[in-house]
């Protein structure tokens, strides 16, 4: 709760809204004890006195009643009615939503159909019909406003509940012997409550407006009782001659609603940072670069990374996702980057073409050179002209990485036309060729398909075709087969392998699977906590891992054909990249670690074709992996 209030008031606008609202509420509360004239006493002689007249700070209205006094009592009334309507709508609507969403099936179907019918009315028509039937009056207006908002809450809360009811923790609760009622109260409700609070805090302003609106139309509060809406309605006749009688209640409504909206947005942001419209930062077209030191001179290799550092800055925290990575890849070569989640392998790959989401990502050091040119310091236009043209990407999940609303043909054509003007007809023919090149049967028909009409394997073939569209020099493949079934994975891997041999492509292949690396890659770099710990020819590393991490990691992976057995685990967890230890990041989990491992930077020491970042590298079979 304290944390919530802290979050809420860190947002200055929300604080302003809360302050205004508290002030208005306070004044409304103490109105009865303030020395004000009776709001309903008429004095025809004092009609339409202007503001700041003696005894009438805000003047008087068309019947000579004190405007300040009427304003304050009207505020009380409007707030009370609006809040009551909001509470009624929230409680009834949310209950309906939770029940429908949780029970599902026929109950849900019938309730939601009724809700749909109620929502088929423009809301005021329903309110007008209810007021017409019950007769004008403040209570009836309250009922009408609450009633038209019930379906809104019901639908909203039902949607959230359906999502929750299918969650695994609800299944777990069921298996642990909870009844439906217990599940609703102890599993569903605590998770729905924030959404209910958000929905209420963002609509309560609306409901105050709506009740004021009905009163404005003469259908709400009846004379002599007046809320802000009916004050405005009565003053309308004298709008042109005595505008202050209209302006005073109008501004009050505006202030109330605005303060509630500000506070409501703040509450929403504080409860659910993900929903916060502002927190959804959009990634810029290219990663922000803030290199502090002088970058190394670019290399002449096809693609080379030197001391690359990429960080994520989130609030006070700095996550050093990539902490000084140097790599190179040449024509026709396949380089594997292997590591567990959080090791920085994907961020390294995305940094190459400035595709790390930014904010919060930042490249803070090092160089990425492509054919001798530094890409980190390159302008957006230079970067864009190379993206997809000379260096192409294949990403992990082909369903989310292809645009859902464009046909695969159009997406292929776009990849070509982004870099050179190709006549539409030629581009179409080329798109079919590309699909044939990645062995998609019936390519001429398939170009017209949307991604959702294809299987996962087919979609990934399309992604590969797209990467090939401009005959690039380098393809960076970021776990391209992780989301696929094993039989499909085998085909995609062999396709990639054939393509690189046919076209002399350089491939950077990111994976967590030693089997894949062994089959596909010429060289491999092992990453741990944002750094390369070992690098070299694949066969050499797999036969004789020298970094204790590489060795232990390989021992963790069961291999097919080994029969039933116990596995070798690595105790503990990798360090969080926002709290990296001094010295070797693996020291805490390493059985050979000495005091010196926990001090100072340890370099990646090259030894012939290989390199290892360890003070006490292991030789093959020197250690017996103990459990």
């Amino acid at each position, binding site marked *: 709760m304290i944390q919530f209030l802290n979050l809420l008031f860190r947002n200055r606008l929300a604080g302003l809204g809360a302050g205004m609202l508290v002030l208005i509420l306070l004044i409304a509360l103490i109105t009865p004890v303030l020395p004000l004239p009776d709001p309903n006493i008429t004095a025809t002689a004092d009609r339409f006195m202007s503001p700041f007249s003696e005894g009438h700070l805000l003047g008087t209205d068309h019947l000579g009643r004190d405007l300040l006094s009427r304003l304050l009592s009207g505020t009380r009334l409007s707030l009370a009615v609006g809040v009551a309507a909001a509470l009624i709508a929230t409680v009834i609507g949310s209950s309906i939503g939770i029940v429908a969403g949780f029970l599902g099936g026929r109950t849900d179907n019938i309730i939601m159909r009724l809700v749909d019918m109620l929502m088929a009315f423009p809301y005021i028509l329903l309110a007008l019909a209810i007021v017409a039937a019950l007769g004008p009056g403040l209570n009836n207006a309250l009922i009408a406003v609450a009633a038209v908002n019930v379906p809104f809450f019901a639908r909203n809360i039902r949607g959230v509940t359906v999502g929750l009811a299918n969650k695994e*923790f609800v299944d777990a609760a069921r*298996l642990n012997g909870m009844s439906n009622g217990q599940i609703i109260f102890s599993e569903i409700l605590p998770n729905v409550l924030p959404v209910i609070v958000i929905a209420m805090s963002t609509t309560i302003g609306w409901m105050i407006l709506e009740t004021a609106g009905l009163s404005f139309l003469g259908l709400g509060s009846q004379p002599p009782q007046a809320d802000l809406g009916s004050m405005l309605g009565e003053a309308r006749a004298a709008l042109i001659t005595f505008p202050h009688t209209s302006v005073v209640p109008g501004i009050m409504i505006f202030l109330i609603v605005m303060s509630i909206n500000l506070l409501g947005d703040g509450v929403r942001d504080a409860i659910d940072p993900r929903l916060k419209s502002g927190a959804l930062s959009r990634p810029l077209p290219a990663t922000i670069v803030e290199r502090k030191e002088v970058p190394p001179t670019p290399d002449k290799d096809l693609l080379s990374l030197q001391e690359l550092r990429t960080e994520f800055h989130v609030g006070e925290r700095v996550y050093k996702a990539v902490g000084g990575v140097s790599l190179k890849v040449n024509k026709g070569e396949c380089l594997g980057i292997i590591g567990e989640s959080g090791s920085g392998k994907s961020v390294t790959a995305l940094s190459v073409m400035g595709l790390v989401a930014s904010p919060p990502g930042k490249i803070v050091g090092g160089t990425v050179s492509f054919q001798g040119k530094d890409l980190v310091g390159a302008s957006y236009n230079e970067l864009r002209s190379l993206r997809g043209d000379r260096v192409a990407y294949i990403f992990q999940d082909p369903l989310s990485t292809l645009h859902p609303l464009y046909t695969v043909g159009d997406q292929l054509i776009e990849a070509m036309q982004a870099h050179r003007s190709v006549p539409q007809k030629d581009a179409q023919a080329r798109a079919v060729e590309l699909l044939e090149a990645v062995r998609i049967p019936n390519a001429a028909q398939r170009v017209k398909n949307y991604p959702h009409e294809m299987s996962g394997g087919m979609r990934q073939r399309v992604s590969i075709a797209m990467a090939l569209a401009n005959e690039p020099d380098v393809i960076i493949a970021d776990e391209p087969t992780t989301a696929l079934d094993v039989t499909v994975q085998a085909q995609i891997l062999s396709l990639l392998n054939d393509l690189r041999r046919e076209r002399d492509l350089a491939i950077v292949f990111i994976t967590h*699977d030693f089997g894949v690396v062994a089959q596909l890659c010429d060289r491999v770099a092992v990453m741990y906590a944002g750094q390369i710990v070992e690098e070299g020819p694949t066969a050499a590393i797999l036969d004789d891992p020298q970094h204790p991490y590489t060795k232990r990691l390989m021992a963790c992976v069961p291999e097919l054909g080994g029969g039933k057995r116990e596995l070798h685990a*690595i105790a503990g967890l990798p360090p969080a990249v926002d709290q990296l230890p001094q010295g070797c990041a693996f020291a805490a989990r390493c059985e050979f670690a000495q005091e010196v491992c926990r001090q100072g930077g340890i370099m990646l020491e090259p030894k012939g074709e290989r390199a290892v970042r360890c003070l006490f590298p292991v030789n093959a079979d020197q250690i017996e992996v103990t459990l």
Partner: protein
Amino acid sequence: MNALEVKDLTKTFEVGKTLFSRGLGVKAVRRMSFEVRDGETLGIVGESGCGKSTLARMLVGLLPSTEGEIKIEGKVQDKASPREFGQMIQYVFQDPISSLNPRKTIRQIMETPLKRLHGMGKAERDKRISEIFASVNLREEFLSRYPHEFSGGQAQRIGIARALAAAARILILDEPVSALDVSVQAQVLNLLADLKLKFGLTYLFISHDLAVVEAVSDRVMVLYFGTIVEVGPADAIFKQAKHPYTKLLANSAPVVGRPLEAPKQKGDELPDPLNPPSGCPFAKRCIYATEICETIDPALMEMGEGHFAACHNPIRG
């Protein structure tokens, strides 16, 4: 004795049902029969769409079956109450974080089965939780924390601890390590092996990773398109696969030292579940398929010691 017996188990989902039409039936699980012996680990492998998760959910009573019978420790599973069977069979979920209610402390989560299934008092519950936490190597200070404060591996231990709290002797492990990194995966797999010995548990271990399944199982069952295509001892099923699909799976798994070459098959698409083929569902992809495969769906036949396959043209050898 058998811990679990399943006979002709079938699940049909209705899709496209509206108020006016009944919709089409999609068979996610088609007439499966098998048993799990007391104290064994039965591995279940298959690719997406093979029905392994549907099967698992039916076994614990989270999903009603359309046809067939499930016997747990000799008792017919009652579709109406998962509560009674919660003491006999429990489930460990794939996604460890989302299987824990984000708004409850770990203690509250752990207390639920003890309270609801066993009606334990406060003191007894605390004692039991301490015991269980000790056996899954979790520190007791975790009890006052919330699920989001844990890593995947720790959360999965908590999930296992919760299943143990129910004191069920059969655990359905639904891809329990596929959301975890390999180094953590090995920790959890070893923990599961220890617990099994210690408490005499029976496991049904579902995974898409053949090597993991082989490493932990006594017997393995291979599913394809809602049916059992092969079942046999773990040390033989992939080495001496009888069904061409099992063979394809085994040859597809990337293995250090084997050259990269996609195993032969004709296509890679599953049959359309709305319009299932009349013969063997694998016939369209199978390089050994003959005429009979297109028309008659083969039944499981014994092809070795405890080794069964559903194939007209099994691989000899």
